[in-house]
């Protein structure tokens, strides 16, 4: 039986760019170049490996919710080897919080049809790391999250979750939602062939009305949190820099003693 895998990927502002907030205190997604969140590349990679381990008997759909530019994230995932893409794009989505995003993605995942949903561990802009758990809650499927190792066989997903206190071996029946960490294995680079093939792969565009989601449940208005203030952290004042001429360790000790650390 062919496995239906949906990978949730986010288009995010480049972390090495000058990330900031727009006037309405939402993440400015216009002024800074974006890309497929690096942490979601790991999700695409694991989906591809699961498909390979399943003898190619799987169909991978990459799903994003985002503005026009977010199609770049889908293209990248398609060029890595995903089969098709779904892009939820609607004016009303500007400023949606994680609860709204999860509502939309849950509807979209159901629209596509799924046995397995694969997410990244966190988006590199919002860095909440909770969407996969919420998605599982909404879909009513097991959550098998923050895995550094994952495998799917015989209708079951298994994986290893490395926590602070312990490392856990987990198991759940499909359908399930998983998320994978950046310890799960380097993501592949798209090949030239992959990039060419991606151009011909289908991208389905959806609006909220296609998913039966009411606009009042999303966007800034529908958000259940409000940002009252945003301040830029003051730049750190320039420190003292010395060149080690043989006494660097001692000079540093002198400084630390002056600061009462030793």
């Amino acid at each position, binding site marked *: 039986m062919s496995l239906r895998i949906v990978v949730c990927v986010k288009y995010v502002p480049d972390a090495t760019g000058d990330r900031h907030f727009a006037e309405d205190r939402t993440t400015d997604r216009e002024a800074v170049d974006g890309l497929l969140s690096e942490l979601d590349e790991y999700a695409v990679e694991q989906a591809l490996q699961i498909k390979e381990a399943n003898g190619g008997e799987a169909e991978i759909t990459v799903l994003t919710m985002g503005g026009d530019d977010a199609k770049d994230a889908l293209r990248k995932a398609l060029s890595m080897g995903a089969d098709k893409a779904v892009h939820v794009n609607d004016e009303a989505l500007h400023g949606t919080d994680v609860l709204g995003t999860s509502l939309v993605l849950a509807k979209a995942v159901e629209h596509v049809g799924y046995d397995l949903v694969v997410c990244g561990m966190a988006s590199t802009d919002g860095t909440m790391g909770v969407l996969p758990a919420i998605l599982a809650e909404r879909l009513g499927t097991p959550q*098998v999250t923050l895995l550094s190792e994952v495998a799917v066989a015989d209708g079951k997903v298994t994986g290893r*979750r490395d926590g602070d206190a312990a490392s856990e071996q987990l198991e759940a029946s499909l359908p399930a939602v998983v998320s994978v960490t950046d310890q799960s294995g380097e993501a592949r680079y798209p090949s030239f062939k992959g990039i060419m093939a991606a151009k011909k792969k289908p991208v389905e565009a959806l609006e909220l009305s296609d998913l039966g989601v009411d606009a009042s449940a999303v966007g800034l208005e529908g958000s259940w949190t409000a940002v009252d203030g*945003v301040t830029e952290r003051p730049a750190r004042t320039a420190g003292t820099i010395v060149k080690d001429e043989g006494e660097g360790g001692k000079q540093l000790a002198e400084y630390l003693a002056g600061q009462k650390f030793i």
Partner: protein
Amino acid sequence: MAEVLVLVDHVDGAVRKPTLELLTIARRIGEPVAVHLGAGADTAASTLGEYGATRVLAADAPEFGGYLVVPKVDALEQAVEAVGPVAVLVPSSAEGKEIAARLAVRLGSGLITDAVDLEAGDDGPVATQSAFAAAFTVKSRVTNGVPVITVKPNSAAPEAASAAGAVEPLEVSFGDAAKGTKVVSRTPRESTGRPELTEAAIVVSGGRGVNGAENFHVVESLADSLGAAVGASRAAVDAGWYPHTNQVGQTGKTVSPQLYIAAGISGAIQHRAGMQTSKTIVAINKDAEAPIFDLVDYGVVGDLFQVLPQLTEEVESRKG
């Protein structure tokens, strides 16, 4: 007085420090009521009471250890129903955030994660968060439902404030989803005897410049002389030189110690995300152009294999 629920992070009743911070913060908003899930509530209760918990709602069941996340969501949801709190505070661990997130959906509540501070406000608690690798500070609040807020370690100094800490059993019934994800086996981490990375007053981290697992002892020796925790950059972790649990940065731990010492670390944005809010920052790097020097209070341009041992020796001799 209004009550605030605090989910306790503990190991068999040994309460972890971030929970004491949460109890301290909760008192700014109302009376803290602790929720203790798993074994050891009676042991935990005296500590929880000492830090201001008026009541300790306790439940133990095999489901908490045997299945991932959901049983604890069920329990916390039922604690919310029983208490009717003005806010729910949860430690910002990976598990804590997932519990909080699912709870928020069930309660129809707004969710705030990774708060680094929390104050009472006219329209409910106001959280402070760091954004974009700590380049920004954001103030936010929940506008719908009972606020569910996860709070990072080191967000407040724990202050004792004696309260009853009376243990009350919490009746929990588990829903269909509770047994969805089975924990087949669990291997506890071995303790290194060093302070917890996220709780330490001083952190000494090594990066690619340490150049091998066999060299990490220069970082460890300095850390031990200072009573510090040891951190590592992702490059050092990916190379297999140091465990991932010690990684500092976006996909590792966020630390905010009094003193952070970076040795052989360039200072990439993802590393800065995890250490930028440290009070004092010191770096040792042989490249004078390394971006880490933009952050430092004191920097030494030099070879860490010269500088660190000399510093360690100096620290030891000053200790006398």
